[in-house]
């Protein structure tokens, strides 16, 4: 079942074919197809236990498929934004050092990446002392530092409030605008995330429905899966869509200054 049309631009960044992931006796994913083309923002939504994380883990090679294949473009540069990192107070780490953890660039590239997400003033602070919003921005900046071809975001806004999440997703959109990277994110922030996406894939062990945000938001499978939340999302989505191109960054700034 080939659900998603390619844009016909060169090689796909990621191609997932007939992917099944099984943990013990539990089937996390069954026969999932997915293709990510350069420059597009794709969001995977789904309830808890729908296999969103398994899909992402299969893509980064953290879990091996029981069936099917995950093909990455050769030498693809991935910028990965994890859900959380284990920064406890026993591990000292300045923001600057963290930015250079897997990237051997100078301070300049670190500053530039942090500026892009609006937190360049916290270079010398400890990672364990950042606020939730600052922390997620630093994670995003670190993923952007080596100019990735694709950003992978694993529930990147967990723990942020709705304005915080909205501001974060705008930064992701900006990053795509500025660098042309593709974005694959998984999320359960339905309403916030959908307006920022070119395509939405609704997952529940298998691909329920997929397409543009409008198509998915009005799909019966989607409504069935998310029920009441979906109703609200559709309303919010349509509402937000009217104002979508007004890129006001007040929220993000006030959040960064906290």
């Amino acid at each position, binding site marked *: 079942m080939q659900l998603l049309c390619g844009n016909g631009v060169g090689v796909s960044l990621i191609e997932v074919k007939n992917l099944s992931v099984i943990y013990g006796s539990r089937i996390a994913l069954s026969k999932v197809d997915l293709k990510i083309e350069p420059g597009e923002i794709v969001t995977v939504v789904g309830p808890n236990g729908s296999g969103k994380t398994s899909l*992402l*883990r299969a893509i*980064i*090679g*953290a879990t091996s498929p029981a069936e099917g294949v995950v093909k990455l473009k050769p030498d693809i540069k*991935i910028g*990965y934004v*994890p859900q*959380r*990192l*284990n*920064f*406890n107070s*026993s*591990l*000292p*780490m*300045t923001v600057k*050092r963290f930015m250079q*953890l*897997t990237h051997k660039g100078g301070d300049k590239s670190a500053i530039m990446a942090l500026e892009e997400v609006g937190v360049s003033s916290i270079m010398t602070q*400890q990672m364990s002392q950042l606020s939730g919003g600052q922390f997620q921005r630093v994670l995003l900046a670190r993923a952007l530092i080596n100019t990735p071809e694709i950003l*992978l975001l*694993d529930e990147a806004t967990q723990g942020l409030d709705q304005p915080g999440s909205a501001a974060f997703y705008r930064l992701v959109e900006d990053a795509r605008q500025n660098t042309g990277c593709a974005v694959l994110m998984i999320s359960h922030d339905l309403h916030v995330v959908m307006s920022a996406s070119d395509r939405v894939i609704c997952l529940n062990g298998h691909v329920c429905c997929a397409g543009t945000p409008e198509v998915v938001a009005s799909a019966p499978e989607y409504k069935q899966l998310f029920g009441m939340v979906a109703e609200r999302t559709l309303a919010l989505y349509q509402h937000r869509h009217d104002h979508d191109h007004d890129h006001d960054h007040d929220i993000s700034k006030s959040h960064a200054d906290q």
Partner: protein
Amino acid sequence: MLDDFMIRAGLAGIGLAFAAGPLGCFVVWRRMAYFGETISHAAILGVALSLMLQVSIFAGALVVALLIAWMVNLLSERGYAIDTLLGVLAHSSLAVGLVVVSFLSGIRIDLMAYLFGDILAVSRLDLFIIWGGALLVLILVVWRWSPLLTVTLNEDFSYASGFNPKREKLLITLLLGLIVAVAIKVVGVLLIVAMLIIPAAAARTLARTPETMAILAGIIGAVSAVVGLRAAFVLDTPAGPSIVCVAATFFLVLTIVGSFKSFQS
């Protein structure tokens, strides 16, 4: 120079500290203290077996420590309740070790030497083994530094950065096994974990990056070894415990100073 037993003891302590400091940082960051205890307790079984089979103590302790380290790593991958498992392994291997030693009536064994170390009796060969083992640990930690740090932060993050977290985790456990075997002569199996954790914890208050913490941990451990040996000589106290006491004093003073400073700011 190496003819003086105090010089040999000092060099043994410094060698151990330089490796135990950086490795100990990972023990602290990854909360593996009990893991270290288990491997070190298991080493006493290795000592007992090598006395029984009349092979090198170092070799016996090394084999058993590595075996236990590998086993615990394997079982934790499979999702066993790790805390209980460690408790069972730590104490049963210590108990079996002590029982085995009691059967060896032919030889008179001073078990205290293995429980608390006998750093003043370090021979040239011991010194060679300690520095060889310590250098190996240090080289591997430095070489795998970034992958080890990423796996400490998050396993999926490690995969996405192109590393294999399973391999890095196994490396940490095996290095712990190696350092335990190396340290038996210096501080003994009961105080090895102290040399891993206390200098690292003391260094934490001064450090702003993982690298400075690792280097400072090595230095604090080495200074503790030298000062502790000197104190043991002057005060006629047991050497291994004296070294640990000095390290603990470092921790206490630095922690108090550190919390005072953060209180001010």
